[in-house]
């Protein structure tokens, strides 16, 4: 998908032309920026001004810059090259002299920018000047009225003022970027002296990433809608297992990362980002949290669309797009489960899938790093978009169209290991009977002692299953307890943790039991489904696994599999 998109663009010759004007050696930026753009399927043609000739390029009417006619121009000036000794040893000069030089330099740049804007209507991004980190004035530096930090700060402030009401001009905050990189990563003095490279090679690579924030809106790649998972994304834990009281969400300790994450998301909503939910959950459990959890920041009326069900996430995503009537290429998807992310990446490559780290403390940072919501200007409509879509909630459905789901699961490379009567894992086995609500046929809870009795008994078989796929080990995440009679086996318990659902492991697990029974000349397997408020995901399973309904007692259903 990505490749064909790119191919198409290449054929059309629609390369994005980018110019970089600088007063130091920055050739490496062209390569890095080209690579970053290609990652996003944006093919670029990037020109760097000849060494230190940024001013000539702007002043000369017939310069290469104007012939190239870029759609966007990045201007990045090194403060040392701009000010020379006034930056290296500023206090060798008196304050008025310093100030004069700063004012002159600013005027020069202001005039260059005005000229440039008059001659070309491309977007212009100017990097602000790097503040010095030390000064010979030491602890008295910030008491100097015309101190070097003050002067650089004022210069940057004036630069920003130029851009405030100018739709063409943007200021990239160099010092903010340097803070993120750390000064010692930002500059490499050796390379600076050897080749006048004022930015380290690692800083250049990351600068290219930062510049994408300007490239996306230029290429109409701005995302509109944030699609969120719930369990372990909006709150810690699985609500279907631990209940509304057991999830982590709130202003204290381990609930705080999720609480803050929700606040950040609400902030995006308030600046016009449409929110939607795509979650595997029981609707009732999830809605109870949204409606009644004391610390739930995001409310029902923040979401334009709620897909809370047991369908795969791709189908849900397509349905969300259809209901909201916006393209899938406007979506950002956040989910803590790597296999869900892989699924969406594979089937819907136009969706931006965020690789959420395992550590919830880092969630907010990941959201801040997203550069995909930028616009060159925000209209009132942009700001209201999130609310508009909530108001316009419409219901229309798309048919399932996922013939390829099975092949995706194959690619997950799911591996499992089934153990019979393993005493090593008794505590986990008991725990999983206590905690598993969703994919659980009978929802019988057992203590460690009871499990031990089953294991020691000739009449019972306890099978536990360990599962892993290419994304990691899920550990012991499924269990079957079988009562053995002479001719028939009876499934007392059969359950899988919801972490491993959607991979069709349940079928492999039940097949294993069928095969065991067969090898012991058993005639049939009896199983029951006892419905609870939460185990609807397991409702259809026995039927799908080839069991026949033989009877009903109240709400409980009895099935038989004949061997």
């Amino acid at each position: 998908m990505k490749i064909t998109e790119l191919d198409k663009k290449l054929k059309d010759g629609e390369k994005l032309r980018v110019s970089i004007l600088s007063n130091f050696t920055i050739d490496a930026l062209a390569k890095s920026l080209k690579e970053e753009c290609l990652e996003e399927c944006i093919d670029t043609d990037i020109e760097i001004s000849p060494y230190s000739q940024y001013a000539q390029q702007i002043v000369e009417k017939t310069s290469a810059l104007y012939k190239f006619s870029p759609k966007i121009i990045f201007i990045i000036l090194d403060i040392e090259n701009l000010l020379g000794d006034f930056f290296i040893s500023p206090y060798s000069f008196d304050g008025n002299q310093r100030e004069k030089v700063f004012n002159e330099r600013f005027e020069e740049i202001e005039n260059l920018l005005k000229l440039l804007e008059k001659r070309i209507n491309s977007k212009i991004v100017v990097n602000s000047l790097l503040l010095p980190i030390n000064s010979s004035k030491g602890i008295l530096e910030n008491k100097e009225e015309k101190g070097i930090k003050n002067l650089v700060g004022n210069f940057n402030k004036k630069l920003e003022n130029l851009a405030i009401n100018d739709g063409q001009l943007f200021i990239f905050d160099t010092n903010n970027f340097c803070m993120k990189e750390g000064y010692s990563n930002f500059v490499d003095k050796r390379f600076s002296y050897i080749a006048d490279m004022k930015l380290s090679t690692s800083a250049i690579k990351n600068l290219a990433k930062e510049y994408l924030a300007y490239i996306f809106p230029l290429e109409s790649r701005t995302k509109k809608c944030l699609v969120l998972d719930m369990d372990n994304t909006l709150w810690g834990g699985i609500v279907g297992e631990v209940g509304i009281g057991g999830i982590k969400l709130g202003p204290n300790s381990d609930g705080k990362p999720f609480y803050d994450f929700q606040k950040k998301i609400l902030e995006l909503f308030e600046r016009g980002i449409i929110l939607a939910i795509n979650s595997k959950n029981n609707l009732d459990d999830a809605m109870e949290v949204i409606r009644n959890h004391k610390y739930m920041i995001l409310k029902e009326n923040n979401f334009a669309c709620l897909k809370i069900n047991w369908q795969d996430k791709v189908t849900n995503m397509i349905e969300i797009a259809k209901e909201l009537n916006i393209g899938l290429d406007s979506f950002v998807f956040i989910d803590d489960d790597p296999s869900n992310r892989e699924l969406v990446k594979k089937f819907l490559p136009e969706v931006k899938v965020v690789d959420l780290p395992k550590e919830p403390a880092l969630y907010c940072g990941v959201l801040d790093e997203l550069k995909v919501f930028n616009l060159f200007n925000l209209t009132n409509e942009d700001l209201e978009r999130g609310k508009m879509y909530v108001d316009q909630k419409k219901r229309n459905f798309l048919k399932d169209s996922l013939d390829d789901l099975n092949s995706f699961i194959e690619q997950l490379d799911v591996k499992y290991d089934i153990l019979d009567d393993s005493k090593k894992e008794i505590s986990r086995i008991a725990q999983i009977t206590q905690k598993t609500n969703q994919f659980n046929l009978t929802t019988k809870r057992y203590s460690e002692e009871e499990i031990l009795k089953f294991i020691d008994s000739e009449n019972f078989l306890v099978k536990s299953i360990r599962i892993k796929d290419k994304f990691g080990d899920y550990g012991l995440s499924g269990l079957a307890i079988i009562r053995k009679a002479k001719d028939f086996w009876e499934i007392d318990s059969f359950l899988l943790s919801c972490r491993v659902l959607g991979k069709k492991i349940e079928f492999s697990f039940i097949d294993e039991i069928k095969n065991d029974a067969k090898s012991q000349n058993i005639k049939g397997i009896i199983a029951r489904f006892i419905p609870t408020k939460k185990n609807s995901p397991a409702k259809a399973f026995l039927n799908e696994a080839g069991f026949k309904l033989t009877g009903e007692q109240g709400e409980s259903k009895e099935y038989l599999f004949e061997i």
Partner: protein
Amino acid sequence: MKEIKKIVAKILEIEESKIDENSSPENIESWDSFNSLMIVSEIEDYFKMKFSTEEILAVKTLGDILRVIKSRDLENTNGTK
């Protein structure tokens, strides 16, 4: 050496098989002074070490780079003993 070749090949945009200890700006066209610095920088990242300015300026061939890496290895082993 395999990793080093890989790094150098990527920067110079040539095949790994064309690289050996004697590779230098003399016999590889794309090896200019700028790429020389890129090679040093990538190797520093990979081996988690730093060249001195003097060492960078003294690099004439790939062999020179290898010698600097080796000298750091020796220092490290001596240090731990």
